[in-house]
């Protein structure tokens, strides 16, 4: 089975995340880059499916040079090879354009199954799986907390507010996973060493069949008008409990008409 796992390098949540003042895009230099957390669950799920079904796991990532770090991590976890879509023309692409570029790249890699995290911790749009399914004309099996494959039949549990939906479809398909679907493995030393020798193919926009006039900041369907640091919240009242802390909160809540 040809399993393609999508991986995104994001700014570390723990480091200062900023937008650049000139073009309002993410300031990637200001923050340490890490692999998007939910992508680790996607890699793990891809590896488990490969282990059960046979086949190959390809990591597909779009992003600047630094994305190599996240690609290496995915390879160290056990993916077989990687495709890195890298081109200055892609910088500043919004969700709609990103889905176009990745769909084109998937046309080059081919796939039976695309696995990705349900959202990234930086943009948090949560739209990519849906957009890809729409563009590729394959089933959208998103927000999965359980995946079962039997031949070309695929069943997932889709997490919902009320519980979950049982969803059935046929491969090829796009699956997005939620946290807790599995326990992602840590790369072993052997895995880390092996990752250095695994093939990473780099594709520019032309190589990936991406029309450069459809991507990048200037051609985006959305634009950031302005941004500013959020005003700090007014300093609240902080009281050390002297045996009446609960009563004091109740008074505060009453003063705000919550009780």
């Amino acid at each position, binding site marked *: 089975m040809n399993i393609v796992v999508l991986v995104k390098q994001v700014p570390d949540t723990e480091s200062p995340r900023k937008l650049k003042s000139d073009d309002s895009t993410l300031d990637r230099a200001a923050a340490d880059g890490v692999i998007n957390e939910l992508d680790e669950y996607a890699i793990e799920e891809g590896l488990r499916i490969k282990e059960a079904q046979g086949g190959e796991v390809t990591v597909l990532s779009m992003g600047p040079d630094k994305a190599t770090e996240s690609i290496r991590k995915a390879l160290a976890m056990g993916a077989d090879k990687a495709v890195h879509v890298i081109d200055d023309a892609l910088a500043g692409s919004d969700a709609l354009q990103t889905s176009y570029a990745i769909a084109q790249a998937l046309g080059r890699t081919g796939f039976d199954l695309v696995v990705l995290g349900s959202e990234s911790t930086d943009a948090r749009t949560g*739209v990519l799986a849906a957009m890809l399914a729409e563009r590729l004309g394959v089933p959208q099996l998103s927000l999965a907390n359980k995946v079962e494959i039997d031949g070309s039949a695929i069943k997932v549990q889709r997490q919902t*507010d009320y519980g979950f939906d049982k969803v*059935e479809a046929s491969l090829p398909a796009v699956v997005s996973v939620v946290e807790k679907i599995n326990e992602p493995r840590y790369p072993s030393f052997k895995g880390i060493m092996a990752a250095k020798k695994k093939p990473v193919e780099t594709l520019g926009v032309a190589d990936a069949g991406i029309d450069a006039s459809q991507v990048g900041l200037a051609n985006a369907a959305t634009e950031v008008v*302005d*941004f500013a640091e959020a005003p700090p919240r007014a300093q609240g009242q*902080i009281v050390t409990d002297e045996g*009446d802390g*609960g009563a004091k909160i109740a008074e*505060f*809540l009453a003063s705000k008409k919550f009780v």
Partner: protein
Amino acid sequence: MAEILVLVDHVDGEVKKVALELLTLANRHGEAAAVWVGPGYENAKDRLAEYGAGKVYVAADEELTSYVVAPKAALLAQLVAEKSPAAVLVSATAEGKEIAGRLAVKTGSGVLTDVVDVADGLVGEHSIFGGGIIAHAKVKTGTPIIAVRPNSIAPEAAPATPAEEQVSVSLSDNDKAAKIVEKVVQEKGERPDLTEAAIVVSGGRGVGGAENFSIIEGLADSLGAAVGASRAATDAGWYPHSFQVGQTGKTVSPQLYIAVGISGAIQHRAGMQTSKTIVAINKDPEAPIFELVDYGIVGDLFQVAPQLTEEINKRK
């Protein structure tokens, strides 16, 4: 004024509060036209009328709710083509955003996800990077598709007499590619939905174990609140993951958020920072959650929280 389509969130005819918020927002920037998908409209029509749905497109065919997301996007795309609305509003729930995503591809339109307000010119306000930055963005191409965070807008009653129009859409094979064979409802009791609740009480690492979450639930129930949990608590298996508030869980924006035994790491703050009033109970005076609070108690949650519950119950 042009129509603004509002996709109505409902569960079997019971309208979610966010739908009323979207109707209010739509009427600020145009004329709200509700889009109803699936059975149950008859039970909901009075409520939609009360909150200003001057028009309702009713697509009652149950088939539209039998497949994952795609049929709703197909219906909206057809309405966008036929009615040329000024914008489409959906709720910024996981599913709402997915519908927005597919609709954006179908119509070649830009999409704004998780806005907390919409200003003149359909400029969306976003609270990003864990609430640290307020950004404004707009759609340049196509029909603006805007996903709005629940609890961001106060719904206002604005009685209307809706003009109803039955609509249907023929689904393609692609729209029917992911079939929902069963909807499994997990017991959540009488508590409100986490993302819709006016009050949320969350427990974290300090709660110390699954058995102690009864303290959180007791406090929540005294306030008619939803229960949430920090990642530390869900990772430890003390509370189900679906109740996790934070960057990799739910984003909530209630009137009142009470954090109990939660230190307030950025991962958690990303999910609750736009709450209107924040209260915390934590034994560590240095906990970052206290930077956010309107009122905080430094103390032992096992003393403070039960006392608070008792005081609230006394005042009823």
